[in-house]
């Protein structure tokens, strides 16, 4: 379903991905763990074609996307949903209009069906009755669920989550985890980037631990938990001393310059 082979990416003079190899099978929920600045979000951006690798291959839904034209990329992206860290809702549209945005802008179905689909997906993320509210009127957890509803509205085959539980209280986190598990049962392929160990162990089929732009450990929740690798133990127990080091290198932010910035039309 998703395959990254020997992917290298340098940003701002720093090698963010250093020969990353990763495969996600159909219907699987893969969680990517790692310290800040290790390339987790960059990996997601490669999968969705927001970034292209300097070297290596990125294959999504059976197609090599790093060499695709803009038009072909748009088609692939329409089969992928993406939940951003803060929901990335447009603040001048209410929740329902935000959720319906991809359907309306791409003229995917008649207005009546769009309304029905919005209602359906809002119920799915437990936001029914909140469609008329503006993003500024809802809590952080609700914004993430609205973002999830928008990602789900066009029935994607792949769903990518960028830190879906960050900044949420434990109850809101559990609601999000529950939704991810419910989606897993529907057979959707999911990749989730997180720092939240509880969330990772709760939802993951497999967990990949990223360090210095490459996968240093890969396995199911039990294998990761029981791993003898000191780097894995340092990360899952939050130990200050260990092979991963004390400090992270300068954290990569998505708003740092990249050559894909002009991909706007």
């Amino acid at each position, binding site marked *: 379903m998703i395959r990254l082979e020997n992917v290298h990416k340098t940003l701002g003079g720093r090698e963010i991905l250093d020969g990353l190899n990763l495969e996600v099978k159909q219907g699987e929920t893969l969680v990517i763990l790692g310290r800040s600045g290790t390339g987790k979000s960059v990996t997601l951006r490669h999968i969705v074609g*927001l970034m292209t690798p300097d070297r290596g291959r990125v294959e999504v839904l059976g197609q090599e996307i790093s060499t695709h034209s803009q038009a072909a990329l748009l088609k692939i992206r329409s089969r992928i949903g993406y939940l951003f860290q803060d929901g990335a809702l447009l603040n001048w549209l209410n929740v329902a209009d935000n959720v319906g945005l991809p359907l309306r*802008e791409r003229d995917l179905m008649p207005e009546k069906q769009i309304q029905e689909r919005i209602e359906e997906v809002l119920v799915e993320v437990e936001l029914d009755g909140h469609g008329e509210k503006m993003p500024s009127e809802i809590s952080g957890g609700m914004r993430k669920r609205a973002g999830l509803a928008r990602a789900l509205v066009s029935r994607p085959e792949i769903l990518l989550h960028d830190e879906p539980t960050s900044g949420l209280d434990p109850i809101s986190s559990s609601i999000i985890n529950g939704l991810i598990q419910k989606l897993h049962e529907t057979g959707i392929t999911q990749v989730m980037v997180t720092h939240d160990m509880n969330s990772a162990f709760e939802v993951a089929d497999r967990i990949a631990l990223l360090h210095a732009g490459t996968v240093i450990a890969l396995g199911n929740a039990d294998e990761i938990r029981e791993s003898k690798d000191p780097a894995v133990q340092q990360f899952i127990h939050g130990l200050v001393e260990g092979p991963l080091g004390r400090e992270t290198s300068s954290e990569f932010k998505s708003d740092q310059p990249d050559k894909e910035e002009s991909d706007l039309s």
Partner: protein
Amino acid sequence: MKSWIENLGAFMGRYIAPVVSFLRRSADSTGFGLVLIIRTMLNFPHLFSRRRSRDCLDLCYNYCIGSFLVTSVVALFTGMILALNGGNSLEELGQESLIGPIVAVSMIREMGPFMTALILTASLGSGIAAEIGTMKISEEIDALRIMSIPPIRFLVLPRMVALTLVTPVMTIFAAFIGILGGSLVANSQFDVGWLAFRNDALETLEFVDVFTGMLKSVVFGITIAAVGCTQGLLTRGGATGVGQAARRSVVVTFLLVIILGYYLSWSFLS
């Protein structure tokens, strides 16, 4: 020898490198802005879709309402100042009848477009840069790209078209209010009758004056929108970056409006 080279290196690092970096950034954003205008023009047919035309009309309405009061006040007093200064000199020569033509031609040909452009730059151009910049840093632009919604079509096109339409409208409005202000002063301070003021002004005004003013306002409108959108889309670095984008959009547009205004006036006068 070594210390001389070290001093030169330190000097270059401190004074030359920032200048080179600034020039490079300026060249990058100029190129980005020009490409943005071309891409927006290529997307022009999408303006006729129901959603984009509605967005554009909404923006036109908001832009007009948002700049109405400040444009009215500035235009009124600009016309009054023109009439007062011109009137004082002309009174000594016994040529008060020229107040109307001077105010009318100045407002329609030069002051109206220029003043309106500066007001819209400060109120709308910086707003566009801040709005799009905030969307950029909160990943909303990326969200649009992932949803296969081209940001140029969704954000830039309606803003550019709306400002290109609103600027001439507000320029005409500003010129009218300015002439009204001028006639108030001419009438109250220099005893120039309303009718005489109007007739003198209309006799002097030529089609080329109105055409020059309108052409300038259209060029200024495109410039304000293009710079605002460019600076917004190039925003990086959080809240500080948004502030810098808004500030840069005002500075760059002011410079471009003055330079373009001069060359447009020059091309028509020559």
